[in-house]
């Protein structure tokens, strides 16, 4: 019985409220896209870029953490060591790599952290607490539920194509697309129709407020992280306008 009351909490090594994760994601997003390479702004940007690293380590996602460190390390090394010593195409490639990718990658890694450590029921609970309308929550829930379904269906269709000897390459690309996509749409839509019927007989779509038994809530660590993120964002914004 412990399991129900503690639902969704046990799997994470460093559980955070999904709203905290979303707030961190947003702040990091704004700052990292916005830039800041010198002075306080530079420190804050580095702070936000390091958030995903710490969170990944706390969640014991060693591989992802290592890849991220390696990537950022390489980008920084390129900027510092190679930029001045190269010219022409190499210089251009290094600029693209370190200038463009490093502007987007920390955000993406943060996104990876959020998505890989949050259960779908937690996202939905967070959306409900944040007063999202049912018009967004219901389709969001269905969308998340259908990702694995589409994957399953697609794998089965892939097997069938192999068996029929319909293969990529050789043939024309449009026909391949057709063989792949049409059965996928047909079977997914069929599953969707049955799902609609089942969900409606379980009372989905009533006018009353839905309950949500998924327990989410702020703890000390949530408050602390939110406070750090928001104040850092404020300092960064003031620095930007000054």
């Amino acid at each position, binding site marked *: 019985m412990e399991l129900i009351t503690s639902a969704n909490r046990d799997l994470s090594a460093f559980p955070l409220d999904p709203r905290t994760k*979303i707030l961190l*994601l*947003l702040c990091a*997003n*704004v700052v990292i*896209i*916005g*830039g*800041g*390479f*010198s*002075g306080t*702004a*530079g420190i804050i940007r580095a702070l936000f870029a390091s958030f995903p690293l710490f969170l990944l380590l706390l969640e014991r996602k060693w591989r992802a953490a290592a890849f991220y460190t390696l990537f950022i390390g390489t980008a920084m090394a390129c*900027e510092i060591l190679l*930029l001045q010593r190269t010219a022409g195409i190499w210089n*251009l490639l290094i*600029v693209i790599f370190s*200038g*463009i990718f490093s*502007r*987007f990658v920390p*955000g*993406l890694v*943060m*996104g*990876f952290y*959020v*998505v890989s450590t949050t259960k779908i029921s937690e*996202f939905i609970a967070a959306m409900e607490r944040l007063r999202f309308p*049912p*018009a*967004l929550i*219901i*389709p*969001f829930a*269905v*969308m*998340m*539920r*259908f*990702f694995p379904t*589409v994957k399953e269906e697609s794998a089965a269709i892939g097997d069938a194509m192999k068996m029929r000897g319909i293969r990529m390459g050789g043939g024309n690309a449009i026909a391949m*697309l*057709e063989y792949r*996509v*049409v059965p*996928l*749409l*047909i079977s*997914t*839509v069929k599953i*969707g129709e049955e*799902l*609609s019927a089942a*969900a*409606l007989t379980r009372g*989905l*779509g009533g006018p009353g407020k839905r309950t949500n038994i998924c327990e989410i809530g702020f703890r000390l660590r949530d408050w602390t992280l939110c406070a750090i993120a928001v104040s850092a964002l404020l300092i960064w914004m003031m620095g*930007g306008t000054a």
Partner: protein
Amino acid sequence: MDNRLSAKDFINIGIFTALYFLLFFVTGMIGYVPVFMLLIPALCPFVAAVAFMLYLTRVNKFGMVTIMGTLLGLLMMLTGHPWTIIPFAIGFPLLADLVLKAGNYRNWTSIRLGYILFSQWLMGLVFPLFFMRDSYFASLRDGYGDTYADTLLSITPPWVFYLMFILVAVGALAGAYFGKALLKKHFQRAGMA
């Protein structure tokens, strides 16, 4: 018929957003082959159009496309893409919804135009590469010096952004025709559209 979205419609919105997104995403992966990189803005809306066209035969009420766009935006945000995706992913789909509504979600001209408008949501992903960068480059100059900033500026001139708009539109338009052809060839004959 009731013009408000029902629970059944919400489920359909979720399903087709999932299908659209996966087609879009898988096509986007081809972009890692450098030759195709420039074609991505056209290719993604082209491939994903089938899902959109089928979607229009299943739901036809105002708000369906806006919700789809908003969900795509949220998904992109959650996976760490730039926040600029949000206004794009709400604004363009909303315009598309208005255009589609004008044609009652059936008129072929408004379907084509609607899909072209809708597809522009993806521009929100690349927007920060080209704009909102005055402060970015100012601080970049402070930190790394002029040459670095100038090289970076020179490979992302704003006209590329406008070119991408056109590429998206072309891909979307071609996709609309392709999607319609598939509807006719398969889904209508199978009794599904």
